[in-house]
Every structure is written in structure tokens, then in C-alpha cells.
């Protein structure tokens, strides 16, 4: 992909603990606009938690996260850092798309209704405009015949593609993928990864937490390997995946070969 220029996401010294359990022990990470970053790491390494800190689904205990020049959850004003209201946080999230491991489609709405919900409700688009764009997006992810299907009538792979269309419908500056294929049957993983590869090619800024080494190899601009709540190493997939410097990275990758 193109060389990184403007920094879209900036995380500095991010700490997070759940009770006595320290999950993140100081994460620093920059993501450039248009960059595709894949975060790898064993379960419990804190990678999903870190992803959820970026859009403030988890509050962090220390450090800060910035997206597009705005600090998430707080505002620095006259040297004082003030907490934002729920409404202001909602506004910050409104241009960050997220795709969940369990899809989390709204089960009482059809595929199309799922996709137009936020554009109409949060972004105040007209129903016609939102519907037109939603049809386009659903067609793009290969679901042109499923506009009126309810989530339960769709396979896991189809549901996840609806979820991707739903996240794209808000015209996100940043897309977060939280283990998007982990809940899928093996034969359905391919269709979701294919959709994600297309998005990566189109220059969307993506942070992907996954166990799919193959996807990292093909689509990532940078691979970040996390373990024990810290970033162990990072770099282009060719380096990190082919020549890992750290023993922990090597032992993690060896399980996939």
C-alpha cells in the first residue's frame, strides 16, 4: 500500500486492568491513514481489549488514545483534561466502524434495516439516501439477494458480511475488526476474509485483531505482535512473520505452521 503519511490513530502508554488483572501494560501504537494493521497474539494477550479501548468501549486507566487528532473520551482545554459526556463520546464513535466476533447484528431487523440504522439514526441521512447506499454496500459484499433476510436466516459468513456492510455504511474513517472470523465455520472464513481484503485494497484504514496468519501475510501493511499486555514486536508482515526476532513471536507462529 502507499507509504504512511498522516497519523490517524495514536495510542500512548495505554494501561488497562480488570480488577487485579492487568491486561494492557503500556501500549504505544501509531496507525497511518490508509494503513492496514493486523494485531496478532495468543488469547489473553490483550489485543481485543486494546481494540475496544480505541473506541472507548473500554475506559483506559492510564495513557491516551487519539483518533484523527481528537482524544477519545476526553478533551484537553486550558491545560485541564476533562471527561466528555456520553453524548460527546457517542459523536466520536460515530465515524469508527466496528465488526465483532459474534457479528452482533440486530436480530429483529432485516439485513437492509441493520445497515441503514446508524446512517438514519445517528448521521441523520434521509431514508432514501441511506437505503440506496446500503443496497450498494450489501451488493458489494455479495448479498444482493439478501436485503430482506433476517440475520437468523443467514449463514455465519453472510451475517458477518452484513455486519461489515453495516460498519461501512457510516462512512468510517477507521474500521476495527475484533476477531471477525473466529466464530465462523472453517468453510465460511474465506468469504469474509475476501471481503476484508477488498476493503484493504481500497485504502480503508483498518485495525484487525485476528488469528488468520494468511490474511496478515496478504493484506497487512504492518503486523503487530502482542503478548502479556505489551507489543512484543512489529513490522511489515514479511519481516515479522518470516523472521520473527523474539522467541515469543516465534513460538506463537510455530503453532500455525
Amino acid at each position: 500500500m502507499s507509504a504512511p503519511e498522516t497519523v490517524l490513530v495514536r495510542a500512548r502508554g495505554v494501561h488497562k486492568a480488570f480488577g487485579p488483572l492487568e491486561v494492557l501494560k503500556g501500549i504505544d501504537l501509531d496507525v497511518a491513514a490508509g494503513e492496514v494493521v493486523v494485531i496478532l497474539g495468543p488469547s489473553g494477550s490483550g489485543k481485543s481489549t486494546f481494540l475496544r479501548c480505541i473506541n472507548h468501549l473500554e475506559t483506559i486507566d492510564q495513557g491516551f488514545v487519539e483518533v484523527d487528532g481528537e482524544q477519545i473520551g476526553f478533551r484537553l482545554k486550558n491545560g485541564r483534561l476533562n471527561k466528555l459526556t456520553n453524548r460527546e463520546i457517542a459523536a466520536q464513535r460515530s465515524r469508527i466502524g466496528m465488526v465483532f466476533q459474534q457479528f452482533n447484528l440486530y436480530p429483529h431487523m432485516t439485513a437492509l434495516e441493520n445497515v441503514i440504522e446508524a446512517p438514519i439514526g445517528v448521521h441523520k441521512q434521509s431514508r432514501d439516501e441511506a437505503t440506496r447506499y446500503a443496497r450498494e454496500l450489501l451488493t458489494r459484499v455479495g448479498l444482493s439477494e439478501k436485503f430482506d433476510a433476517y440475520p437468523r436466516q443467514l449463514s455465519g459468513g453472510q451475517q458477518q458480511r452484513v455486519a461489515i456492510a453495516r460498519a461501512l455504511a457510516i462512512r468510517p474513517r477507521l474500521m476495527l475488526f475484533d476477531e471477525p472470523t473466529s466464530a465462523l465455520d472453517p468453510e465460511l472464513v474465506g468469504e469474509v476474509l475476501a471481503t476484508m481484503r477488498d476493503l484493504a485494497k481500497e485504502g480503508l484504514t483498518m485495525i484487525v485483531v485476528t488469528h488468520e496468519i494468511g490474511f496478515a501475510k496478504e493484506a497487512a501493511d504492518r503486523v503487530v505482535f502482542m503478548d502479556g499486555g505489551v507489543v512484543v514486536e512489529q513490522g511489515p508482515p514479511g519481516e515479522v512473520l518470516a523472521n520473527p526476532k523474539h522467541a515469543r513471536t516465534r513460538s506463537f507462529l510455530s503453532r500455525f505452521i
Partner: protein
Amino acid sequence: MSGFNPSDDALRDVKLAHVPFPLPRVALWAFTLAVALGFAYIVAINPNFGWPVVAQYFFDPTVMQGLSVTLGLTVVAMIIGVALGLILAIARMSQDRLASSLAGLFIWFFRGTPLLVQLIFWYNMSTLFPRISIGIASWNTNDLITPLTAAIVGLALNEAAYMAEIIRGGLLSVDKGQAETAQAFGMTKARALRRIIIPQAMKSIVPPTGNQLISMIKATSLVSVIAMADLLYSVQSIYNRTFEIIPLLLVAVLWYLLITSILNIGQSAIERHYSRGDRGLTTDKKKENPMPSGAVDERA
């Protein structure tokens, strides 16, 4: 396994199978029907039930008046009860300690005391507080608390306490990922509740609410103690005069059953509406799982 004769194969096609006549089932049906008809006949010809009297008073103006009071009280108290119950449920689940404690206190008190006692207290509020004042405005309590307002307030507040727990249970039954997703998409809490959480919670809220509504119709008969002429009170006032106790109670019973039946039909329609996302579960899955749509297959 021996004994299969290949020449029978054509006859073994299950498409050709017959269902043997289900004689025991039919006999059981016939027997049950006969008993039911027999019972209905005995009740119908028994003069002690006074069916002509039932017919005579079924649309009596006093009864109609009582019926409208019962229906009116039920509808108004239920609407207020559900609305207030929703607010209480949300307050009870809120992170705000003050809100959740106040809601908890309300629910504790109104569920923990008999409705009859609550009604009597509301009706006699003027003996406790002769005047009610808010700021500079002040009213004589007896002008505010008529039998009607005491009945509505008493029934509605009691109902709200029960509905709060039903609604809270419904909200808790919705997968946590749904609220989180709504949040991640930048929805405000109010919008997430209205568009995402409540519609899904309705599936578990509607059946017990139907139950509440039906109990409410009958609970309204308690208001006769504070001189409200509901359906039961109206037939009582007639039989106190005519001594035709059983026929007039039958009038009330038939009306209660009729209303309840109509409500049941309404309830199943509402339940169908809120479970629309569940339909087509088995049939569609079979068709689509093995072969996801063609365009994507090629790319994958």
C-alpha cells in the same frame, strides 16, 4: 438382516405409505366431546342457573356502566403502569446509585403491601394530608382524590411496581453485545434502548404483561371498596335488589371471559410481531448453509 425381497422395492417407496386409521385417538376425541356436550347440556337446562335472567341483564345499562368503568380503569391504570414501570426499570438498572435506590424503594413498597390496603390509603389521603401544596399552589386533598383518582393512582402505582420487574427482566434478557454494538455505532443510550434493546426485550416482556393485564381486569373489582361502581359492583348492586345472585354473577363471569378472550387474541398478534426475526430458521438454513451465494464463492 434378511427377508428383504428386491421385488418389493417399488412398493417400499415411502411416498406410497398410508396412515392407519387412528381409532384410539378418534375414540378419545369422541368421548371428550360427548362429555363436554353433556356437561354443557346439563348446565343449559338447569333452571337454577337462570339463563333467561342472564340474558335479561347481559346488556343492562347498569352492567354496561360497570363494564365501561372496569375497562376504563384497566386501560388507564395499565398505560400509566407500563410507562412508569419502564422508567422504574431503567432507573433500577442505571449506574446512578440514587436513581436505582429510589426505584428499588418504590418497587419494594408497592409490591410488598396489599393492593386493597393501598387503595384504601389513597382514598383516605385527606385524613393524613388535609391539604396538598406544591410551592405556592395548594389544593384541598378531597378535591384531588376522588374515588376515580384514588382508584387510578392506586392501581397504576401498584401495576408500575410489577411491570418494572417484568420490564427489567426483559431488558436483561437481551444479549449484552447488542447494547455494546449500538454504543459502538455512536447511538445515544435513549436511542439504543428505543431502537435496539426494547424491541428485542418485548419478546419476553409481552407474555407476562398479558398476564398482568388480565389480573388487572379482575383487580379492578377491588375498587368497589372505595365506592367505584365497576362490573362486579354493578351486578352486586342488582342482585342485592333482586336476589338473583347466580345469574348476575354469571353475567359478570361471561363479560370477564369475553374480555380476556379478546385480549388473548391481541396478545398472540403482538407476540408474532416481536418474534419476526425468528421465522424461517430451519427451512432457510438447510437451503443456504452448504452453498453461500455464488459471487463470493469465487473470491473466497
